[in-house]
């Protein structure tokens, strides 16, 4: 078994090649995929989030750590699936209509994957109908909306209203985020949860799935 601390360090420093190599070695020597994720990668990403909060890390560092984590996850996911492990939940995520900012949304999507969620990422400028379709056809049980412009924040409300209209609002949980979004705004538009960073978004999604219908 390789020194798994190296996996932690590789994710923290955004070294994808090392993350992948250590993961391969761990798999070859019978390492437990779940343990690799929960004991090494998730704590590393939490630390990355902390360094971002205190402005030691910036967006490029975040992206590189997420990349390293994803590289390792790609190897582990088939193993988890073969064991019949179910995703914690199925999230459909996107930046709302009219808004093209996607850096924060992408990070949230990566961390949710790291946290064991199946993630359907629709990208940016996503119309309400697409979210509705994902709930109806793909069985998503969490809808995650991002907005970076105060101009497009009303589209979050419109999307939630459209989910209600389509009769699927009761089946799912809605979480919202993005720099200008606030807890108060989230409550006002009837979202189930808000968080201001990607690590907290995973905790939030876990809490929400605990009370949501399973996929």
């Amino acid at each position, binding site marked *: 078994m390789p020194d798994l601390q190296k996996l932690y360090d590789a994710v923290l420093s*955004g070294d*994808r*090649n090392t993350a992948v190599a250590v993961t391969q070695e761990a798999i070859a020597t019978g390492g437990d995929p779940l343990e690799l994720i929960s004991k090494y990668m998730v704590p590393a990403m939490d630390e990355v989030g902390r360094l971002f909060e205190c402005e030691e890390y*910036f*967006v*490029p560092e975040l*992206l*590189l750590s997420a*990349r390293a984590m994803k590289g390792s996850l790609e190897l582990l996911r088939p193993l988890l699936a073969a064991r019949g492990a179910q995703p914690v939940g199925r999230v459909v995520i996107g930046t709302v*209509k*009219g808004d*093209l900012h*996607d*850096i924060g949304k*992408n990070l949230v999507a990566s961390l949710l994957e790291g946290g064991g969620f199946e993630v359907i990422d629709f*990208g*940016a*400028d996503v119309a309400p109908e697409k979210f509705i379709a994902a709930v109806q056809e793909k069985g998503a049980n969490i809808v995650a909306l991002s907005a*970076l*412009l*105060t*101009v497009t*924040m*009303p589209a979050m409300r419109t999307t939630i209203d459209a989910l209600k209209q389509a009769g699927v609002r009761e089946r799912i949980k809605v979480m919202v985020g993005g*720099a*200008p979004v*606030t807890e108060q*705004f989230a409550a*006002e538009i009837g979202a189930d949860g808000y968080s201001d960073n990607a690590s907290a978004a995973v905790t939030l999604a876990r809490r929400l799935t605990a009370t949501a219908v399973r996929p």
Partner: protein
Amino acid sequence: MRLMLISCEVLFREMCDAAARSPHQVDVEFLPKGLHDLGGKGMAVEMQRRIDAVPAGKYDAILLGYGLCGNGLHGISARHTMLVLPRAHDCIALLMGSREKHQQYFDEHPGTYYRSTGWLERGKGLQQLTHVTTGIDVTLDQMIEKYGEDNGRYLHEELTRYRSAYTRLTYIATGLEADSRFEEEARWEAAERGWEFERLAGNLVLVHRLVSGDWGGGDFVIAQPGERFRASYDDSIVRIEERA
């Protein structure tokens, strides 16, 4: 009246024009465009610091050449002087002349990147601070130098992907340009990125009304000393916080 105008430098030409034509005596301070890249909270801290530095009793009002700017003006107040802020999401609305026009144009033209003289000459893209913090507009060579070949290429690809998500570049012409250089540069940029180019005639009525003291009709929010601005999350954009 004696007025103090604190404005984002992105509106430099527009504000100078308005100050020159104002019936009032206007002192002007421009703050860096890069402030807005700090995000709402960081920007608000800096805005508050600049407002606090204005001496008490010297001015009849402090004018803010801003919009809500991603909550950068949320929570702002002045201790001793009245504050005047246009109801606008950001500078794009100030260049278009009204928040309604801005909203309408925005809704009808998704995937648009906006340019104006200030957006072209005052720090290209979101350069000033952003390129350290988000990596936007950092060249491939710089990325590779800092993060190595593999990661550098990856970052460059990730952080330039937005260019293919946009479809249009709209240049807002205000009539204050000395010659056609700005429009030509904007056209060149659109062609370079493969975006459609549109020239939109700007309207500086909000800018002029701000600086000439014409604050009626619901287009401006006025905060009396001690009152705070709040994001309203509706068509009014900004309101005054109720006192506890």
